[in-house]
């Protein structure tokens, strides 16, 4: 078995900046690396670019310690305890395996202690060779209070659940207790030195006392307890990675691999839904054995992007005789818009949302949605064999809870130009990154200069970055946006920017970022929308920044209000053609339809569904904010029964939510001008990118982009007067 797998940090790297390439090489002594520019997702799309990384490299294995936990460093100042008590609230969500609660353990020397759950849910305390289990089993999805103690003078160990009489035993000879290992919560060191036995579920209020106290009042203030060493209060600094110790010694910890905070704790009563209003009711952390923030691989290649490298999509091409990997990254311009007036905005947060999507492997039956067999590609097979690469925002954790975070600091096998997906439609299956490379290929073929910008860049530089460009073209599916990005787009349009939204189901979900967890996004699938899982009641606010999550529409910002169209339906097998409407003959939009036949269907072929309109489609709707002067210039309808209306349109389910049974299942193409001389053109269809090779689709798109690059302002006031 040979395999090459890489990831890069960061994803977006400007000339003069440095890229780190991390590689795991299985069954290989060496591998070759070279730089390629990606100008198409299809064969021939990799253009070799001579560079400093070109060469042969020594191969090595790199592994991933998946699973979240908390770590409190000993630091040489942790008290050398001779007796202790641990108290902790526990809400298990997946029993059936050993899982750690609290441990300070040097497994090689046998020093220290560990408290864990046995496979049946009984808490068990071990100190040296002495160990005792509680009589009671913890139940899944119910809070229990666990107290465990050890007396170093007598060797007595106790463990008790919910105030019941403790189980006791006496260890002899007296085991060695003090060790320099870090104190871990929700995981423990294994015999091989790795950290494992990750806890599945929620923990709250762990504390440590320097005395053996077989019973601890669960409602007592930690500070009132005699001999308090540390009490970790998870309701503090919920947005960060620090775990605050409110005890006398300040043994603050850090969270590893992004466990979920801002979740309901044992005190939650259902009266407050926003964690920042009652943090004490959100004093729990949810841990998963399949949480992953950082693979923590060491770099094998370090590449400083040359000053002269043109902006574009690139990849570190790794190869060995029977293995290869192309690890993409995005190079923006050193000085945005010095060379090109057009930005191609690649939705990297949406790539992150779909990163390592496991739905085709064991998700909620995408075969029924696709209405055909699910087709797997090499990336999917590798994900099935390597669960340690972590999950996407579409997946659920092993305990059934939704995956709230996705990080780019790990191999992301869905971000590959050759990867295809079931969602991409027949015959091509291009999806997200690969579909956006269809737009790259079209820009290259049309000879239109462009520079790459990404979500990370807009997040940082906002409207200032966008404002450097006369026009911006989106990818095929810019679905996940943060508040700064949404604001930046609105401001760009307000200041006269031109936006060609060449996709569908865009501007849909709200996500959040955090300076404490760079490279990660957070999503709460709150309230409404097409959801592969649903956020728990009371957990609709992001931990990262305290803002309300879910659909932008449910945040009062429907996509129609920003770009004229918004998500209305999806179907994943075939697409349709648009047909021009009467409004397409309005002189205001004559520039777009120059040379486009008046009576013929628009976009009758394409890689993604065999047409220009489909897969995920948008419609105009004045009630949702489509500007009243917007022109609906083309529409596609007559979709087959594999198309389903968006959930957020359905108040009461009814037998008219599929195919051509509802007029809401249609794709609308919209154009409108903005007051400052700018304009928006939205195609309302994910399939559009795959149909750019169709002459009419290509012609229309080129007409729009070239006019958007023309400095002449779009008239606006006269339109208002006419109406």
């Amino acid at each position: 078995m040979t395999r090459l797998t890489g990831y890069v940090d960061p994803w977006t790297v400007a000339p003069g900046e440095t890229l780190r390439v991390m590689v795991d090489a299985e069954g290989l002594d060496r591998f070759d690396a070279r730089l390629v520019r990606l100008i198409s997702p299809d064969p021939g799309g990799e253009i070799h670019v001579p560079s400093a990384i070109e060469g042969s490299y020594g191969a090595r294995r790199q592994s991933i310690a998946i699973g979240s936990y908390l770590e409190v460093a000993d630091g040489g100042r942790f008290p050398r305890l001779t007796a202790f008590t641990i108290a902790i609230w526990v809400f298990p969500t997946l029993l059936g395996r050993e899982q750690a609660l609290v441990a300070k353990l040097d497994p090689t020397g046998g020093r220290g202690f560990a408290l864990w759950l046995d496979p049946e849910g009984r808490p068990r305390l071990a100190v040296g060779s002495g160990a005792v289990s509680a009589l009671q089993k913890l139940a899944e999805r119910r809070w229990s209070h666990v107290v465990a103690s050890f007396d170093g003078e007598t060797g007595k160990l106790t463990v008790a659940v919910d105030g019941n009489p403790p189980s006791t035993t006496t260890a002899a000879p007296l085991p060695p207790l003090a060790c320099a290992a870090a104190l871990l919560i929700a995981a423990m060191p294994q015999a091989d030195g790795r950290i494992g036995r990750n806890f599945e579920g929620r923990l709250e209020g762990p504390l440590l006392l320097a005395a053996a106290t077989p019973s601890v009042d669960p409602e007592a203030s930690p500070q009132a307890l005699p001999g308090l060493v540390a009490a970790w209060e998870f309701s503090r600094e919920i947005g960060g990675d620090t775990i605050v110790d409110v005890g006398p010694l300040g043994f603050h910890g850090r969270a590893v691999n992004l466990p979920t905070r801002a979740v309901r704790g044992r005190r939650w009563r259902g009266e407050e839904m926003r964690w920042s209003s009652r943090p004490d009711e959100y004093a729990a952390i949810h841990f998963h054995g399949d949480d992953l923030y950082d693979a923590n691989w060491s770099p094998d290649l370090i590449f400083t992007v040359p000053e002269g490298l043109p902006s574009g999509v690139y990849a570190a091409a790794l190869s060995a005789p029977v293995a290869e990997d192309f690890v993409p990254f995005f190079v923006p311009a050193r000085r945005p818009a010095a060379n090109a007036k057009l930005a191609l905005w690649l939705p990297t947060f949406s790539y992150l949302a779909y990163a390592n999507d496991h739905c085709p492997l064991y998700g909620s039956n995408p075969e029924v949605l696709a209405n055909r067999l699910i087709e797997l590609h090499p990336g999917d097979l590798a994900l099935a064999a390597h669960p340690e690469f972590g999950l996407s925002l579409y997946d659920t954790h092993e305990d059934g809870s939704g995956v709230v975070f996705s990080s780019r600091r790990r191999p992301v096998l869905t971000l590959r130009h050759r990867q295809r997906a079931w969602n991409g439609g027949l015959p091509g299956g291009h999806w997200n990154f690969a579909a956006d490379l269809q737009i790259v290929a079209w820009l290259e073929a049309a000879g239109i200069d462009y520079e790459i910008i990404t979500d990370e860049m807009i997040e940082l530089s906002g409207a200032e970055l966008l404002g450097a460009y006369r026009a911006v073209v989106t990818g095929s599916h810019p679905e996940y946006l943060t508040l700064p990005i949404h604001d930046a787009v609105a401001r760009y349009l307000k200041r006269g920017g031109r936006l060609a939204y060449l996709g569908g189901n865009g501007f849909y979900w709200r996500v959040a970022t955090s300076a404490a967890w760079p490279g990660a996004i957070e999503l709460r699938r709150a309230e409404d929308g097409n959801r592969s899982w649903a956020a728990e009641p009371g957990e609709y606010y992001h931990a990262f920044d305290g803002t309300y999550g879910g659909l932008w529409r449910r945040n009062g910002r429907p996509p129609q209000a920003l770009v004229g169209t918004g998500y209305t339906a999806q179907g994943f097998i075939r697409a349709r053609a648009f047909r021009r409407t009467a409004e397409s003959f309005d002189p205001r939009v004559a520039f777009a339809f120059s040379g486009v036949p008046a009576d013929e269907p628009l976009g009758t072929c394409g890689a993604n569904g065999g047409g220009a309109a489909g897969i995920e489609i948008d419609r105009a709707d004045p009630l949702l904010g489509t500007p009243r002067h917007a022109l609906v210039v083309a529409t596609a309808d007559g979709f087959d029964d594999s198309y389903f209306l968006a959930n957020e349109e359905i108040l009461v389910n009814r037998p008219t939510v599929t195919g051509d049974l509802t007029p809401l299942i249609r794709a609308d193409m919209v154009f409108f001008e903005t007051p400052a001389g700018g304009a928006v053109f939205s195609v309302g269809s994910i399939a559009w990118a795959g149909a750019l090779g169709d002459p009419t689709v290509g012609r229309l798109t080129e007409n729009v982009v070239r006019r958007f690059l023309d400095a002449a302002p779009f008239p606006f006031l006269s339109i208002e007067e006419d109406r």
Partner: protein
Amino acid sequence: LPTPEQRTLIEEFWRNPFGPHPAALQRLLNALRSAPAPGKYVLVCREPGREWILGRLGGRGQPVELLTEQRFTNRAEAERAVFVRRWRERFGEDIG
């Protein structure tokens, strides 16, 4: 053996494996396609747009089993082959 009604559905699927399907056939397909992930048939692309084999999902945390004995040069053939396998597994009848 399949009833005359079932025979009609089979013939319809044979003609047009990618639909749109009549309601009765779609209902049958939804049932055949709704097995839990472990053991479920999938298509595995060997050469984009040209060659496929079948696979069986292993479920969470498990690799995909590759069924290399049968190769397909178009998706419709593979759809029919899986339909035959599922029919056999569900109804105990060989319609292939």
